[in-house]
């Protein structure tokens, strides 16, 4: 129940169902199995993007939570082949898009340039995901009618990065202990705990 809720919040924040692997298609290998190699530069880039999504404030951000490394682990081990393919193809696309918009690498961009770039990705992802949802719905209906297995085409690569950033950060040690309230051994239960707006949630 709790995990399902966690996934729901990520869905709410990104507008797209958060799917790691695919519980309904266990062990189903649709799509080409591509070998996955993350360079150190890739991991650094993912950390930097993550840091813009979840920045350091009075508490640590995504970089401190090593979200790049987390993405590598999840993409390599938990993603289905077609999810993985989409993610890996996204890294060079992301680099190109940044060069096109800001005429330089992401790491060399100013804070404003980074934000402008992410905003452009947010918009591109929204457009892509709307079309993707439509074609997924058609394909799902067809598969259901034919009684065949169906795996949804993954969302835009930026959506994948954003979802894994949120998931990774809020299940990381800094995310759970510094940003959220971590109570490994609550010791008791209070079903009417006083709460005021701005108080942070307890970690999972």
């Amino acid at each position, binding site marked *: *129940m*709790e*995990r399902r*809720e*966690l996934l*729901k*919040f990520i869905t709410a*924040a990104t*507008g797209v169902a958060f799917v790691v*692997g695919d*519980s309904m298609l*266990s*062990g189903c290998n649709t799509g080409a199995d591509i070998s996955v190699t993350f360079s150190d530069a890739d991991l650094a880039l993912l950390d930097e993007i993550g840091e*813009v*999504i*979840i*920045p350091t*404030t009075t508490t640590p*951000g995504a970089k401190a939570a090593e979200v790049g490394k987390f993405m590598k682990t*999840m993409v390599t*081990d*938990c*993603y*289905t082949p077609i999810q993985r393919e989409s993610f890996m193809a996204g890294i060079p696309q992301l680099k190109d898009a940044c060069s096109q918009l800001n005429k330089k690498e992401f790491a060399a961009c100013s804070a404003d340039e980074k*934000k402008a770039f*992410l905003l452009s990705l*947010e918009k591109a992802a*929204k457009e892509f995901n709307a079309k993707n949802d439509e074609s997924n719905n058609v394909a799902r209906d067809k598969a259901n009618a034919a009684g065949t297995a169906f795996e949804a085409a993954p969302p835009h690569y930026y959506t994948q990065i*954003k979802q894994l950033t*949120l*998931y*990774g950060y*809020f*299940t990381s*040690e800094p*995310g*759970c202990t510094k*940003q*959220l309230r*971590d*109570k*490994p*051994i*609550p*010791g*008791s*239960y*209070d*079903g009417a*705990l*006083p*709460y*005021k*707006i701005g*108080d*942070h*949630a*307890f*970690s*999972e």
Partner: protein
Amino acid sequence: MPGDSSNVNINNKAAAQNTYDAIVIGSGISGGWAAKELCEKGLKVVMLERGEHIEHIKDYKNANKSVWEFPHRGDATQQMKADYPSLSRDYPLNEETLGMWANEKDCPYTEKKPFAWFRGYHTGGRSLLWGRQSYRWNKWDFEANGKEGIAVDWPLRYEDLAPWYSYVEKYAGIQGSKQGLDVLPDGEFLPAMEMNVAENYVAENLKKHYNGSRHLFIGRSANITKSLPENNRPNACQYRDRCWRGCPFGGYFSTQSSTLPAARKTNNLTLENNKIVTKILYDKDKKRATGVEVIDALTNQTYTYQAKIVFVCASAFNSTWVLMNSATDIWPDGLGSSCGELGHNVMDHHFKIGAGGVVEGFEDKYVYGRRPTGIYIPRYRNIYDDKRDYLRGFGYQGGGNRGRGIEVAEFTFGAELKEAQSEIGKWGFGIMGFGEVLPDHSNRIYLNKDKKDKWGLPVLEMDVEIKENEIKMRKDMMNDAQEMLTNSGLKDVNAYDYGYIFGMGIHEMGTARMGRDSKTSVLNSNNQVWEATNVFVTDGACMTSSSCVNPSLTYMALTARAAAFAVEELKKGNL
């Protein structure tokens, strides 16, 4: 391999040493209770467990980990899904409990129709992995088969089991609140866990709207709300909700936390791990079992154990599998098969259907602690004056909570998103129906001799499906959920059906049912196999119907009752 005499390697020296008063096959909820009761009554007992040992606390390797200490934060990997194709159909496949479910490559089964079989092959079995919901059956549950002409009548009534419910509740430690309802009899409860403000709100509204005919209260569970030093349990539940990883505080009932220490304390228990019981040895002249044959899971050696009585508590299907492989020279389909019901009448609870919505208000309240139980709404269908177009009924489990994350405008990222994802949203509330499955002769399991497991043993084939009665009931389970939550003041109520595959309830029941007549049942009213009265089957296999409430507490009560009876019979010289 067993049954192939050229391969049987009986170790005679070991055989002489392998003589006990009682053999208990399996160490789960039922096996643990059998061992405790028989040992405490002075019998020398060997408990045979097919899997590895897990020692209480010491071997709970994930018990104290934080979520970030799991590389995939608890999620299943593609490799895990490939290794556990059956388990991957549902939530039990996750990083936290990996290694605590039966290895599906070594221990396959086949599905004529889809069947999810989730097994725990280790000391404690699924007592480490259970949901801990603990409910008594009611008087109608025991009467319904007989009155409705379904399957066969139970050979016992609520009154026969009530004192045994009390007995096991007191020892296991069940928290709950007394409600005074015929439909869900009260038990010997520890102080109840608390409902939160949203749950109390829904409970009050439900009661009001349905004029006191429907009830919502805290789910009764085998989590102890106070320490039970007299039962060797020094710590109460710590509200971690990490039960499935094994509890370092012994906060919930498991073989390890509860029945095994009691059995060990007597010095009458021998626990043997990695011993797969392949058959019960049957003396056809004396019409009784003389012991069991086992194969050592690690060495493939075959051994025998001798005893005066055998308690078969290997989990429903595996208990029946043992019977099917026993005395086949007399009955080709195994010990207990002469009635034609062995392996038949498979039951589970069908579920994964219900509704959820939003509870408005209470914005100044939140929840502290992770309570390891939810709320319960007991059955109200087909009792008193209610009459539906199907038989029996269902109950709901569920709960309310405030989830993390509040709404943001689109294209939001940065500090604003970080903050929004850290605060908490509205109160959500959801319920899920758990429905009774009727016993049906055509729902059956049988040996598939074309497929063998790692040890060359035939595997089970599942030929089971839900029928018209369950399908009709599911409509009510969904519609009622939506209607009740709407009538209880929730907003944005949505019904759901996640889809149920037989077995997912992990409440396998039937296949060696109790009854009043040896011609139509495998076991008598004391769980004795009609053809071998020193063989007792007291786990889910013995169930004659399924009720809609979680079954484990009933297995505990039946096992303790049968153990007391067995010892009395031994004393009288009847066994």
